[in-house]
């Protein structure tokens, strides 16, 4: 075992129905973010910048296409050389699983063993941060305990009911954990567990081997959660920018926050870069008729219309006199003449026809499914989303 050698496990098997229809065909960590990123780019970049040369990624089965399309050879994250490797595991739900072979534990254990690492980093799928993992590793080494967890003080409205709140003593030890839905309501800020921890690899192998004997199947996430309760655990406070994405509203807000230049600069212009897939797109063209303010635009767009306080992803076309405001537009969508898009999330490859309005509200942004062709107005009032309208609007 090499000193300090670290391997990383990124697990994205927690499905979140609250993010539908955006997560219909893609795992949470493959959600586009800020025009040119996918959420997983952040954790991959965190891992790479900490000189971790091996990554094990776990996704649900059936999500293969978007995952492989994005990661591909792993070149953009420097995962395609002899010393740098990645592995992918596709997780089977209980129903599909063949009880004869407990593939999940076996392959994780085998991975950690083969990685020959001293430490293992674990990361979940829905929190975006620009974290220096080598610092976490240093703190972990100093304490010489089994687990160190990463948390951030977050306002309660930015915490999901299923999130975990840490009870931390003055000296930085974790005293206990609670589910956010049971947490005390008076607190304005809580210690949100970022679903990131670093553990000793030997210890994790032991734990997983123990759990392997059990009848019912738990994920690594569950194993670690259980260990935080029972073992000595130190907490590392992250003070940088964090987005916790767990439903449409939080997804919308997190993206929109990137239009706040201080948050944008803190997450994306820091000395630690966020690496993304190479899309090799031409620069974006702004026509004489365009008016674009307070917005972020990816490469390869053609803008003839108006864009205000919005995020445009790669290859968006905005025709003359169309107006996009307070919206997220994913790659390769076209907004035709005189169309109006406001408080909306357009998934990839959406076409909004001439003169059509797609309008949501700040509290309830309207979501247009991937590949949908919108030919008549869709105005969403406050209150609940009309599921049928969204899910069947496609052609």
């Amino acid at each position, binding site marked *: 075992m090499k000193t300090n050698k670290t391997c990383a496990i990124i697990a994205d098997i927690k499905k979140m129905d609250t993010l539908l229809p955006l997560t219909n065909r893609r795992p949470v960590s493959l959600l586009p973010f*800020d*025009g*040119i990123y996918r959420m997983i780019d952040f954790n991959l970049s965190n891992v790479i910048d900490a000189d971790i040369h091996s990554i094990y990624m776990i996704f649900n089965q059936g999500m293969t296409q978007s995952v492989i399309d994005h990661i591909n050879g792993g*070149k*953009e994250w420097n995962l395609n050389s002899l010393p740098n490797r990645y592995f992918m595991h596709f997780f089977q739900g209980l129903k599909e699983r063949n009880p004869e072979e407990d593939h999940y534990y076996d392959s994780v254990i085998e991975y950690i063993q083969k990685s020959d690492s001293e430490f293992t980093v674990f990361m979940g799928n829905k929190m975006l941060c620009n974290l220096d993992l080598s610092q976490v590793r240093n703190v972990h080494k100093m304490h010489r305990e089994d687990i160190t967890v990463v948390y951030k003080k977050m306002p309660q409205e930015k915490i999901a009911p299923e999130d975990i709140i840490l009870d931390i003593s003055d000296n930085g030890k974790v005293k206990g954990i609670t589910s956010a839905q049971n947490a005390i309501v008076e607190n304005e800020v809580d210690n949100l567990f970022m679903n990131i921890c670093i553990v000793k690899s030997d210890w994790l192998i032991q734990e997983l081997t123990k759990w392997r004997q059990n009848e019912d199947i738990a994920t690594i996430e569950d194993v670690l959660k259980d260990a935080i309760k029972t073992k000595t655990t130190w907490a590392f406070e992250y003070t940088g920018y964090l987005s916790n994405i767990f439903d449409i509203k939080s997804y919308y807000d997190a993206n929109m926050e990137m239009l706040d*230049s201080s948050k*944008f*600069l803190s997450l*994306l*212009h820091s000395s630690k*870069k*966020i*690496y*993304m897939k*190479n899309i*090799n797109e*031409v*620069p*974006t*063209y*702004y*026509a*004489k008729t*365009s*008016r*674009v*303010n*307070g*917005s*972020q*635009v*990816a*490469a*390869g767009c*053609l803008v003839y219309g108006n864009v205000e306080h919005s*995020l445009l992803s790669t290859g968006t076309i905005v025709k003359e006199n169309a107006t996009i405001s307070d919206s997220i537009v994913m790659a390769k969508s076209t907004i035709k003449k005189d169309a109006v898009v406001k408080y909306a999330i357009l998934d990839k490859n959406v076409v909004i026809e001439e003169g059509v309005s797609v309008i949501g509200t700040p509290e309830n942004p309207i979501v247009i499914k991937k590949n949908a062709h919108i030919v008549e107005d869709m105005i969403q009032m406050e209150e609940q989303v009309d599921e049928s309208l969204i899910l069947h609007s496609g052609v």
Partner: protein
Amino acid sequence: MKKEVLAMILAGGKGSRLGKLTQNIAKPAVPFGGRYRIIDFTLSNCINSNISNVGVVTQYEPLVLNSHLGNGDSWGLDGINSDLTVLQPFSANDGSKWFEGTAHAIFQNMDYIDRMDPEYVLILSGDHIYTMDYEKMLEEHKEKKASLTVSVIEVPMDEASRFGIMNTDKNNRVIEFEEKPENPKNNLASMGIYIFNWAYLREFMLTTHQKDGEMLDFGKHVIPSYINSGERVYAYRFAGYWKDVGTVESLWQANMEFIDPENELNIRDRNWRITTRHRVSPPQFLTETAQVDESLVSSGCYVSGNVNHSIISTDAQIREGAQVTDSVIMSGARVGKNAIVYRAIIGENAVVGDNAVVEGKEEVAVVGNSEVIGVCNDED
């Protein structure tokens, strides 16, 4: 394995007419169009024409060029049957092998070409902006059973005396070649793109080198000699956008033309993508005060000023109140608050300070790479 075609890109020229812009950088590595370098067009043409073995001959200030090329991976030239080799001058038993002309550069790299063992050698220069299917030219070369095919383009008659002019018969066979003729007989200009049958060129160069060693340049020496000795030399007529960006004025002009989405280069054509080295930059940010018209803006830019008919390259910043018109801002450059940039090229990582004025009049103004004009207050 024997290769059918090997492309040799001549990228060693100094490009002295680009002044400050090529002070410490080879001409083919000069940035273009917001995120490219000039050589990207030639390299992308090779890939798109199914030519996957490329030698790049470098000589003058190769640092930036070399790091841009790397092992060719950005263009997919690092595969099992593809390869990009950077060829630089070297010392050898029989003296130093510096390159004294286009043909001489090929002669000095004969060992490399022999190793690749191609049937045809495609000679390209790395300092033109164009998209061209070399495969079509090769097909014509084979059809005509030519020994040498020279790609030509029609230029305006009054400009013809600036070029090497090909006089052809009705079958496009070249009967005469005149380098920069005073009274051109026609307007078919050589584009500096040649396909040679390697076996013959190799023999030809070895023989003439032993005789007089004067075959330094393709245009001046090799082509006239081929024609005189009765070799089958044909012209391949190319029609399309082609720009020699050898001067500040023409580089600026080509950039200005590049802005137009209707540009003949058709860079948004998915079947003919122009590829460049991947650069990690966040999305571009246009703030509340930004006003951008008729312009191209690249990734990583931060614009809060006014931009009109200009190219803003990767990671450049245009601060509040600045006015950029008819200009090219190269990557990483900063234009300070209330500064004015008009009809200018601002080099990579250059700084135009707050309230500074860079104005081109008759001639396009140039701020060199990393040059600093005035002071730019840095609060972000």
